[in-house]
Structure formats: C-alpha cells, structure tokens
C-alpha cells in the first residue's frame, strides 16, 4: 500500500493494465510525449512505446471512431478526451456506433473500450473546460458510466472498466485529481461497476453524490454530525448501471435524502435518482427529497464559479429544509 492522489492512482492503474493485458492500448491527444494535460498517462509512453500509448492528431471523433474499430478488431483501447467539452465532437461515434454495436450485431461485434473524460469545474479553467454532461452519456442506451471520487475507487473502477466487455465512459473529477489522497494497494485490483459505496453510515439523513461533489458532501456530513445529525453519505460511483438497491436501502433507513450534483438541475441525473426514491421509498420518506445542483446556466468563468458550484453551505441549507419538514 502507498498513499497516492487520485491522479497517481489512475496512472498506476493504467500502468498495471498495460503491463498485464496485451490487448490494452492508450490513445488520445498528448497522452504520450507529455503524459496528458493532467499527466494521468505520465511515463507510460516511455515504458510501453508508441504502439501501446498513442499520441493522436487533434480529432476527437477520430479518436472515438478509430478506437471503436480497434475494439471491434480485438483490442481494449483506453481513449482520452482531453476535457468533457471536447468530447462533444465525438458524440456521433459514441452514440451512433460505440454504444450500439453489440445490439445491432447481436453480440457478434463488441466494443470493449474505455473513454476517459476529465470533467467538472472549480479550477478556474477556460470556457468549455468545466462541463458536467454525465446525464447525456447516461441517457445513451448501451453505455456504462462510472465516476470515482477517491484514489482507491479510481484505480479499481478503471481496471474494471478496462476489463468490462462493454463500453464504459469513465469520468474523472478534475478538481479532485490532486486534492484527495489515500492508501491504495500497489498491485492491480478491481472495484465492481454497478455498486454504490456507503462511505459513512447514519440514521437521520442520506446525502447522495458522486465525483467531485463528494468533497462537499463529506464536509457537509461532517458539519451535520457535529450538530448531532447522524448523516449517511452515499457515493453513487456507478451512474449506469445504477445501484438502486443501495440507494433504496439507505433512504428507507433514514427517511430523508439530499442529492448533490454539479451538473445543471433540469434533467440532471439527480432527477432519475429522486424518481427511483419516490417510487420505492415513498412510505418511508419523512420529507420531500432535495436536490443541490448546478444551475441551468452555462458554467461560469473563474470569477463566478462560486455562484454556480454547489457549496457546503447550500447542502447544509437543504439539510435544514429536509430535517425540519
């Protein structure tokens, strides 16, 4: 075991996969020579060479489409989109081809690839660099969508995504790349896709979040516990497939829930979670489920990010509403 950041955990997981699985290739813009704009692929090109770690032209649709062909042809490509806003040119490939091939060929051809996408704001980046568009991928039949929030899950979920027989969109919270650390095994391991994680057990209230928002969720829970509110914290981790069972078990126990996400509110993935809760937990609910989310606006530039991003204070205000109902 060693203490690593989320970024380092991803780097090590990729290194293990490249070393242990002959069919894995890493492909994307600047992933080789510079090790990626976030250095997630740092050092891999030197270790594994240009046939395994491939610097591509600046062409997201090409990366997704060529990677798709590689996957059908027997490889397991791990593709990097440099930022979520840059993944939009690849939508046609991802939605029309990657997500559909198993279905349209009745299992004859499959696309076991991973599309890694750094996402989310809070680092004062340029326009288009702070998107949280997970709902679009979740709304595309045929894709799995996972979002780690801590180094161990990042490494384990990435390995599971690489080994998965179906395409996985792997979202990486930019803001947490270097701000969370934990002990992670030095050898490769998997974390199952499709299972949520109860990070803290509690009996009064469930805070449900994923990815970057887990930081605010944890801080809000700590503040609530200090106030005597026994708060349960649930990291969804896997949006598709969704672990409905764990969500339901938690909310049936606590009777109160808040869903937190950075993406815009309307048709955000929180809406699906709230719908699942109301359908399966109605008679256990002590209060309407609250959502703490980004607004239905363009993600603001540096000076106004705080206006948009869900904060600990907003979560605590929502908790107050839920607890006093």
């Amino acid at each position, binding site marked *: 075991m060693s203490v690593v950041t989320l970024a380092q955990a991803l780097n090590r997981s990729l290194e293990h996969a490249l070393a242990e699985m002959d069919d894995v290739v890493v492909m994307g813009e600047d992933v080789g020579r510079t090790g990626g704009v976030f250095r997630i692929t740092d050092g891999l090109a030197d270790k594994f060479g240009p046939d395994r770690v491939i610097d591509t032209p600046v062409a997201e649709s090409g990366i997704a489409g*060529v990677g798709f062909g590689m996957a059908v042809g027997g490889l397991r490509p791990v593709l990097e989109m440099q930022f979520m806003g840059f993944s939009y040119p690849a939508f046609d490939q991802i939605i029309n081809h990657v997500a559909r091939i198993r279905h349209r060929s009745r299992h004859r051809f499959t696309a076991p690839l991973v599309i890694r996408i750094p996402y989310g704001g809070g680092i004062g980046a340029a326009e288009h660099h702070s998107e949280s568009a997970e709902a679009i991928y979740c709304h595309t039949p045929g894709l799995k969508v996972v979002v780690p929030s801590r180094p161990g899950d990042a490494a384990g979920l990435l390995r599971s995504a690489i080994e998965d027989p179906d395409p996985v969109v792997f979202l990486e919270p930019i803001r947490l790349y270097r701000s969370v650390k934990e002990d992670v095994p030095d050898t490769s391991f998997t974390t199952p896709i499709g299972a949520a994680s109860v990070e803290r057990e509690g009996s009064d209230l469930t805070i449900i979040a994923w990815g970057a928002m887990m930081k605010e969720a944890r801080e809000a829970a700590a503040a609530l516990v200090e106030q005597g509110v026994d708060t349960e914290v649930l990291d969804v981790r896997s949006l598709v497939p969704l672990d409905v069972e764990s969500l339901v078990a938690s909310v049936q126990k606590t009777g109160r829930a808040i869903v937190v996400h950075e993406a815009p509110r309307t048709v955000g993935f929180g809406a699906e979670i709230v719908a699942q809760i109301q359908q399966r937990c109605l008679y256990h609910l002590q209060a309407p489920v609250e959502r703490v989310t980004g607004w239905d606006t363009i993600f603001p530039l540096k000076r106004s990010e705080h206006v948009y991003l869900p904060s600990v204070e907003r979560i605590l205000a929502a908790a107050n509403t839920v607890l006093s109902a």
Partner: protein
Amino acid sequence: MLQILTPSGDLVAEAPLDLDMTTRLYRALVFARAYDRKSTALQKQGRLATYAPFEGQEAAQVGSAAALNPDDWLVGTYRDAAAMWMQGYPLDLLFAGRTGDERGGSPPEPINVMPPSITVGGHMVHAVGLAWAERLQGSDRVAITYFGDGATSEGDFHEAMNFAGVFDVGCVFFCQNNGWAISMPRESQTASETIAQKAIAYGMPGIQVDGNDLFAVFSATRDAVLRARLGEGPTLIEAMTYRLGPHTTADDPSRYRTEDESAEWRRKDPLERVRIYLSERDRWSEEWQAEIEAQASAEVEEAVAAAEALDPPGVAGVFDAMFADLPPILAEQRRMAEEAE
C-alpha cells in the same frame, strides 16, 4: 481515369483476370443485379423496409471485393450489399436486416464484414481502427471501407483519411462516386476537381478508375490491398459510377435529374461490357445467361423465404444484446415489457 475494358467490351490494356475468373465474376454481377431488383420489388410489396438500390454500381462492388482475402475486414453502407455478399455475408441475413430484424447485423464467424453503416460517413474511421488493430496484433489482414461521394463531405472522412495517413494504416478507401448524394450532384458536394485528388492532402496515393469497368476496379483494388497488406499504407480509390435507380425506394430522382443523364449511363452498363467480352471469347450464350439468371433468382427467393421465416425477435430481441450481462434496471424493464406483451 484507369480503364481496361471499354463500354463496348474492348480491351485497352491487359486484362487483370483470366477467363475463368472473369466468368465467375460475371455471374456475381448477374447475381447482384437480381438481388437488387428483387429487393426493390419486395419493398414495393411491403415485405422489406426502405431499400437503397445499387443498380449500375455492380462492377464497383464486385470487382473491388474480389480483390480481398476472405478474412479481410469490410466496412460499408446500406448500398453495399453486393460487396458484403461477395465477402461472405449470408444472403438471408442481408434480407433479414431489410425486413427490420437486428439479427441481420450478425454475420457468423469468421466473416469480418461489419453490419452496414446507416449514418453517412461515420464508418470510415472504423476501418482505420480495424486495420490498425490487425497490424498491432501481428496480422496482415487489411480493411476496406466503402462510401459514396456525399460521404466525403462529412468531417469523419477527413479524420479517417488523416489518421490512416499519419499512422500508415493498411486501409483501402473505396469511394463509389455515383454522381448523386440523394438530390445533390457531385459538383455541389465538393469544389475539388476529383475525389481521388483529395488523397494528396493526406499523403497517400489516390486513383480514379472507371467504376463500371470490372477489370479497372479489380486491378486498382488489388494493388491497393497489396500495398496495405505489405504495410505500405492506405490508398484512396475513386470509382466513377452511377446510381441508375433512386437513392432509396422512398426517393423520386425525376425531381432532380434528367432521363437523358440516366440513359447515357445505362449505355455504360457494367454488366454488358463483360458480357460482350466473354461472348467474343466463346464464354457466353443466351442459354447460359438464362440459366445463371434463373439460379440467381432461385437463390434470392430462398434467402428471402429464410429471412421471412425467422420468428419475431420480440422482447428478447429488444433487450438481450444491450450488454454482455443485463443490468438490474434493464432486467426490470424487460419484465415490464414482457408483461405488456
């Protein structure tokens, strides 16, 4: 433009195929036309969904696919059934797809033909990835991708050509320039003088061939495939041909082009010139023609019957190929769909 066999059946260069092989491919051309005409007829009877006929393009498809190894990859479109069939795609599955059954997209192993791309232009990059994957796995299989003149306007044509050029991928880009992208003539699609010349920009050879000339198409594709197999990189082939029929059975070409234009191309028919060539070498007779047409018709009928005899795919068909393992939410929806049946 490379031409070996003129519309009147005269050789202007050495034939790249012997008489036996030419006879075999002539049968394939006759078969392709029978398949195509039958499909249009079945669509009019309401037995097939919308159909995209390829009459006029038979030599482009048959001649190019004949240059492949049986296990090479073929990535084409909804108008490339003749090429797919040449590469081993079962006829009944071609029809199954057109009856509206996803099982039509599942050729048995080891046939490496992708189900046809329905969106325009997105599939060319797949061929690049497939050929590249083969090379990285130490195989010399190549990939050929078929597309029309309209698809060269799509951004993914550029990305496919660019990736193939940069990484020297063993991919053959086979453009059937049939003059029309639904209602848009080739001149309105690109200001380039030819489509073949676009290859220069990507650092690969480009060649324009008479797409209605079986020999020219075979010869150019054979050279491109060999180049790809030897690891020398991609080639763009522009086959000059013509879609004698409508874009699809839902289209009416009289709204955008003249009868004169079609009639002129009818005189350049890809089958007729091979027929004359064989006839002049005592390899063709009216009886034989009637015999191979009857055989083609019988085979097509049998395949249609097989496709129509498939049980309806039902709920299982909608759900069971979404993932390797059905996730819980989908399993629940599957039960709901079954209850609603």
